[in-house]
C-alpha cells in the first residue's frame, strides 16, 4: 500500500518535472500575405522557456521548430528506359505529402530527437511523408525522391543547427518561405527536448493567404470558372484588336 502511494507520488512528481519547462513563443508576423509583388517571406520564430525550477544541469535543452504547409496527395513516377526511350513505368501514391516543410533544430536531428519520439510526433521528413499500402517500387526511394525534388525548389528545408539558444532560455530561428508556396494554414510546431525526449510542445498556425487582386482572381477562377474563362478570352481578343489598330494607325 505504502509502496503504491509512493509510486503514485513519485510518478506525479516526475510528470510535474516534465511539465516544469514550458514554451512561450512569438513570431515576427502573424500571417503571410501573398500580394502581386510577393517574392517569398522570412518569418522569425522566437520564444523563451518558462520554468518553475532551475534548469536541470544533467542534460542540454534542445529546440525543434517545424513549419508545414497544406498536405496534398501526390503521385511519384519513376522513369525507365523502354525500347530506347525514357518513359514513366512505375508510380507510388503518397497520401500525405506537405506542399512545404521546413524543420529547424538546435542540433543534428538524430541527437535532439530519439527515433521513438520522431515516430510519435512525426518530425523528420521520413515520418511526415507517408504512403499507405504496398507499392510497385520501394516506398523509401519515392520518399527520398520527393524530398530531393522538393528541396531543389526550397519547398523542403532541413535546417540543422538553425535554432539558436541563448542562456538555455531564449531561442529563435528564421524560416524563409519561397515564392512558390501555396496558400493555406501553415502548421507550426515547436518542441523542447532533453536527452532526445520531448518535454514540451506548442502548436500554432501561420495563415498564408493571397490578398487583393491575387485573391480576387484566384477565387473567381475557382468559383466562377466559366465567367473567368470568358473574361480571359475577352481580354485576349481585346488586346489583339487594340494592338492591330494601334499598329495600323502607326503605319498610316
Amino acid at each position, binding site marked *: 500500500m505504502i509502496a503504491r502511494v509512493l509510486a503514485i507520488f513519485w510518478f506525479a512528481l516526475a510528470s510535474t518535472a516534465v511539465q516544469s519547462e514550458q514554451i512561450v513563443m512569438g513570431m515576427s508576423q502573424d500571417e503571410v500575405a501573398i500580394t502581386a509583388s510577393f517574392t517569398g517571406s522570412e518569418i522569425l520564430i522566437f520564444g523563451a522557456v518558462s520554468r518553475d525550477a532551475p534548469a536541470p544541469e544533467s542534460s542540454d535543452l534542445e529546440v525543434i521548430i517545424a513549419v508545414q504547409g497544406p498536405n496534398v496527395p501526390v503521385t511519384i513516377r519513376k522513369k525507365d528506359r523502354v525500347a530506347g526511350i525514357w518513359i*514513366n513505368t512505375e508510380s507510388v501514391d503518397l497520401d500525405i505529402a506537405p506542399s512545404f516543410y521546413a524543420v529547424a533544430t538546435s542540433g543534428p536531428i538524430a541527437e535532439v530527437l530519439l527515433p521513438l519520439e520522431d515516430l510519435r510526433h512525426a518530425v523528420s521528413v521520413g515520418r511526415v511523408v507517408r504512403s499507405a499500402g504496398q507499392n510497385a517500387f520501394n516506398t523509401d526511394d519515392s520518399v527520398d525522391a520527393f524530398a530531393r525534388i522538393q528541396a531543389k525548389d526550397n519547398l523542403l528545408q532541413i535546417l540543422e543547427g538553425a535554432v539558436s539558444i541563448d542562456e538555455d532560455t531564449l531561442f529563435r530561428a528564421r524560416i524563409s518561405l519561397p515564392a512558390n508556396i501555396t496558400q493555406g494554414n501553415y502548421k507550426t510546431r515547436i518542441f523542447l527536448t532533453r536527452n532526445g525526449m520531448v518535454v514540451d510542445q506548442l502548436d500554432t498556425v501561420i495563415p498564408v493567404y493571397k490578398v487583393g487582386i491575387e485573391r480576387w482572381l484566384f477565387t473567381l477562377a475557382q468559383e466562377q470558372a466559366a465567367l473567368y474563362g470568358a*473574361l480571359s478570352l475577352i481580354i485576349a481578343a481585346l*488586346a489583339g484588336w487594340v494592338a492591330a489598330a494601334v499598329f495600323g494607325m502607326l503605319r498610316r
Partner: protein
Amino acid sequence: MQIYLPIAEVSVNIFLILGLGGVVGILSGMFGVGGGFLITPLLFFVGIPPAVAVATSANQIVASSVSGLITQIKRRGVDFVMGSVLLVGGLIGSTIGVQIFNLLKELGQVDLLVNLCYVVFLGVIGGMMFIESLNALLRSKNSPPKRRKHNWVHNLPFKMKFRISGLYISVIPPLMVGLLVGLLAAIMGVGGGFIMVPAMIYLLGMPTKVVIGTSLFQIIFVAAYTTMMHAITNQTVDLVLALLLLIGGVIGAQFGTRIGMKLKAEQLRILLAGLVLLVALKLGVDLLLEPSELYSIAGIGE
C-alpha cells in the same frame, strides 16, 4: 521586376515573360502559327507548372491570332468560306480529341504520348516542308515555277467554290484536314497551325498568300474553345501570366506579320520548317537521353 502569378503560384520576372510573348508573337505573325508548340515548352522551362502553361498559352494564342488576323483581313488574306469549313471539321475533331486525351490520362501515359505526337508530327511535317521548300527555292532560281498538279483531291464530290483561294474543290478534304488538326490540337494542347499551314498548301493547294490569314481565323476558335475547356475543368488559366504573354505577343505578332510580308513564300516555308525540325529534335533527344532525375512529382501545383 518580379510578379506573383495567382494561379500558377510562382513568382516570375515580368520582362522575361514579356520577352517570351514577344518572340512567340513574331513567329506567330510571320508564319500564321499560333506558337503553342513553342510557348508551352518555354513556359515549362521558366518554371510554370505544366497544366497552367498549357491552358494559359491557349489563351495567349487567341490574342496574338486576333491581332494577326485583323492585319490579314485588311490585306484580303483570309478565305472565310474555307476557314469556316475547316473550323467545322476542327470542332468535331477537338471534341473527339478531348475524349482521347482523357482516356490517355487515365492510363497515366499522357505525357509520353503527347511528346511522341510532337516528335512524329513536327519531324514529319518539318522534314517534308524543308525538302519541298528547298527544292522550290532552287527551282525558282533556274526555271519558272511549275503549275499546280491535279491530284485525287480534285476528283471528290460536293465541290464548292472558294473564291479567295481561287479553288473549286470538294468540301471533304478541308473538312478532313480540319478534323485531323482539331484532333491533334486537343491531344497536343496547341492551336494546330503548324499542321494546318502545310496541309493547306500541299493537300488543298491553297495559295500561300491566303493560307496564313485563314489558318489564324481557324486557330482563334480552336484556341478559345481550348481555353474555356481548361478554365472550366481544371481552373488552370492564369490571367496575369496570359496578360503579360499577350502584351508581348500582340506587339510581336505585328512585327512578325510585316517581316512575313517582306519574305518570299519559299523562304518563309523553309524558316518555319527549320523551326519545327528544331523543336522536334529537342523533344526527340529528351526522350532518348537519360534524364538527370528519374522521378517526378505529379499533383502538386495542379
